[in-house]
């Protein structure tokens, strides 16, 4: 895992003191709320429905036990005993006091963490594959490149007042586990003629106008990665729309110019940038790489004892193939039946940290599906791990099933919401668990957002649900056919919206239809792609 040196630490410490001063000026009345708001947002502090909300960055989703423990302790000390893991590999606290905020940032800085650039029109937390460094199918570990990008994007002087927020994801496998093409920039590390380089996709995103990023360059040599990113950003900073915040994301610029013209402008800027020497020295990447070197894997058992069916089910559902055949990556589900997707108590957070220390070389990952991963677990240790997880209500065997849905905070917490998302998630998981249909359905990605901002990725759900406001009453639109994997697709709306009860019935109906007509080995998404929207519409509205 990456470790700060004195420079990284100094940057974060400086920021804590700067914010402490700003918060003091606000409390003393030297700053108005209008002046203070952009400053607190740069430090991830929002004002939400019930209190201030603090969003903590977990760069490329990787953290160690000590950091995880600090997150649990902050939940207990400053919040109301829990935190919410988000789709952007962040953690949000919902009940923060302004007068505590600087102390929390100081506690975070002690464990090399921060809330910098988790909000505002700047380059946000860089996200990555949650199985990075562990997955059997990856080309290389993408995180050294993500770390290089993290440094470059932190306090970037030219790109702190972009037209809109800017999200970057980096992956290094053909399988996309990070919704890479739904980011402002998606980078895939690839190999070409024996060389490693970066493939750039630019202009994806969700929100009210979802778009899939087109590829603009199939290979950028690694010693030009930062330079190329800088060129992409400069063109956006200069020409992205600023007249309308709903059209300000880079996806609109790329769409309006056309991918070809945007690419031409980037290439021109890139040629110029190459002469400016903005690329960090090559040695920096070599310095970063060893931090992500493999831990000392040992050979051991390659199979588990399947005599306990509950355990066997959990192993089948919640583990992922590791590059070392005596290990797996284990997914800790934060989706207990009827629970709040992504929420974990301070105690659970500390338990996960301890288990990582014990069973996973001290390392954890946050998934964009709001779960936690222990990346390197010995197959021989799986039973002990599962037993401990189950005792802490962390053993739900439901990864990638309908119960493993994404749900944004919605109207229960979010000031921008039109409708609640969490109660829907709870009721759907209870219903499908009770009827035993979850298992029959297999992989089915359900994603719920409480408003058009799409924080819950509903556009990319095999089934998506969007909360809308219908004359002051919560109403829900259903959409089908989205995907955020390597076969990225945007879901289509089925038709008129539903009440809360109605949309739960609707999910039942579309899944029943799938079970009736699916062919061998087909997932819900495959069936939808084969038969199209019409039969589903018929089942819903006739």
């Amino acid at each position, binding site marked *: 895992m990456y470790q700060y040196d004195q*420079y990284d630490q100094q940057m974060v410490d400086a920021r804590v003191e700067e914010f402490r001063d700003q918060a003091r000026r606000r409390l003393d009345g030297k700053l108005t709320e209008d002046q203070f708001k*952009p400053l607190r947002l740069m430090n991830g502090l929002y004002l939400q429905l019930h209190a201030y909300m603090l969003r903590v960055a977990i760069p490329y989703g990787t953290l160690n036990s000590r950091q995880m423990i600090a997150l649990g302790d902050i939940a207990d000390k400053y919040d109301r005993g829990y935190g919410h893991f988000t789709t952007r590999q962040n953690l949000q606290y919902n009940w923060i006091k302004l007068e505590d905020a600087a102390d929390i940032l100081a506690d975070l800085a002690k464990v090399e963490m921060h809330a910098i650039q988790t909000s505002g029109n700047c380059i946000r937390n860089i996200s990555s594959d949650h199985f990075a460094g562990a997955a059997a199918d990856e080309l290389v570990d993408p995180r050294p490149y993500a770390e290089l990008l993290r440094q470059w994007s932190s306090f970037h002087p030219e790109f702190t007042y972009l037209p809109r927020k800017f999200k970057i994801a980096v992956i290094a496998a053909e399988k996309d586990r990070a919704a890479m093409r739904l980011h402002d920039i998606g980078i895939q590390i690839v190999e070409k003629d024996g060389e490693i380089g970066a493939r750039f996709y630019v202009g994806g995103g969700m929100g009210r106008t979802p778009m899939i990023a087109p590829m603009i360059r199939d290979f950028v040599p690694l010693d030009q990665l930062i330079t190329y990113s800088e060129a992409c950003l400069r063109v956006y*900073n200069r020409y992205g729309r600023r007249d309308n915040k709903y059209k300000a994301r880079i996806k609109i610029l790329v769409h309006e110019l056309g991918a070809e013209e945007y690419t031409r402008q980037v290439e021109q800027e890139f040629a110029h940038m190459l002469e400016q020497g903005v690329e960090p020295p090559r040695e920096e990447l070599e310095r970063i790489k060893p931090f992500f070197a493999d831990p000392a894997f040992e050979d051991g058992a390659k199979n588990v004892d399947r005599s306990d069916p509950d355990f066997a089910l959990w192993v089948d559902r919640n583990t992922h193939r590791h590059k070392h055949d005596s290990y797996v990556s284990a997914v800790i589900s934060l989706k207990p039946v009827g629970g709040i997707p992504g929420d974990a108590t301070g105690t659970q957070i500390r338990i996960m940290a301890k288990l990582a220390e014990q069973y996973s070389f001290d390392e954890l990952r946050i998934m964009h599906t709001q779960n936690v991963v222990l990346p390197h677990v010995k197959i021989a240790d799986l039973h002990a791990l599962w037993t401990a997880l189950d005792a802490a209500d962390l053993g739900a065997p439901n990864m990638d099933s309908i119960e493993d849905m994404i749900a944004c905070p919605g109207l229960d917490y979010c000031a921008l919401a039109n409708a609640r998302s969490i109660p829907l998630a709870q009721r759907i998981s209870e219903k499908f668990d009770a009827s035993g249909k979850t298992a029959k359905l297999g992989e089915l990605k359900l994603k719920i957002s409480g408003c058009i901002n799409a924080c819950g990725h509903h556009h990319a759900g095999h089934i998506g649900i969007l909360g809308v406001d219908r004359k002051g009453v919560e109403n829900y639109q259903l959409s089908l056919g989205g995907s955020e994997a390597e076969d990225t697709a945007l879901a289509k709306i089925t038709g008129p919206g539903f009440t809360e009860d109605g949309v739960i019935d609707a999910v039942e109906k579309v899944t029943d239809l799938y079970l009736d007509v699916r062919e061998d080995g087909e997932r819900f998404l495959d069936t939808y792609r084969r038969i199209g929207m019409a039969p589903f519409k018929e089942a819903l509205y006739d």
Partner: protein
Amino acid sequence: MTDDLGTSPDEVQFRFRDDEPADHGTVTVDACCDQTNAAAVRIEPGDDARTLLPFLDRLALIEVNFPAYGDGRGYSSARILREAGYAGELRAVGDVLIDQLSHMRRCGFDAFAPDARLDEEDAARAFATWENVYQRTVDGRRTIQESRHE
């Protein structure tokens, strides 16, 4: 000269240059391209800073206007001018606030004329915010990555 915006150097609150301030009124980018003797120009957020590149030799002052602090196009304009070798005064004017000063400095601004005067002490602290920096820009500062590998 209808394009004259009538700015005077009096309003410059911070200046990091030793030469005499240029006391020319600025003209717009369009006017600057048309007239051969203008020595001071003012860039608005929507202007393309690169149209000035042929005239850099005769310019002693370039003002970059920030009508609203959240419009960050001026940061790119400044860097582009410095990257092209412009050595005259580069002045940030308009909605220039404390918390933007350090970034502006890194993008090549060496003079600041905020609409509302800034607290001197807060500003001094702001200019000194970053003892070290991650990115190479036009201010020529050695980056953290360079320090690590020298």
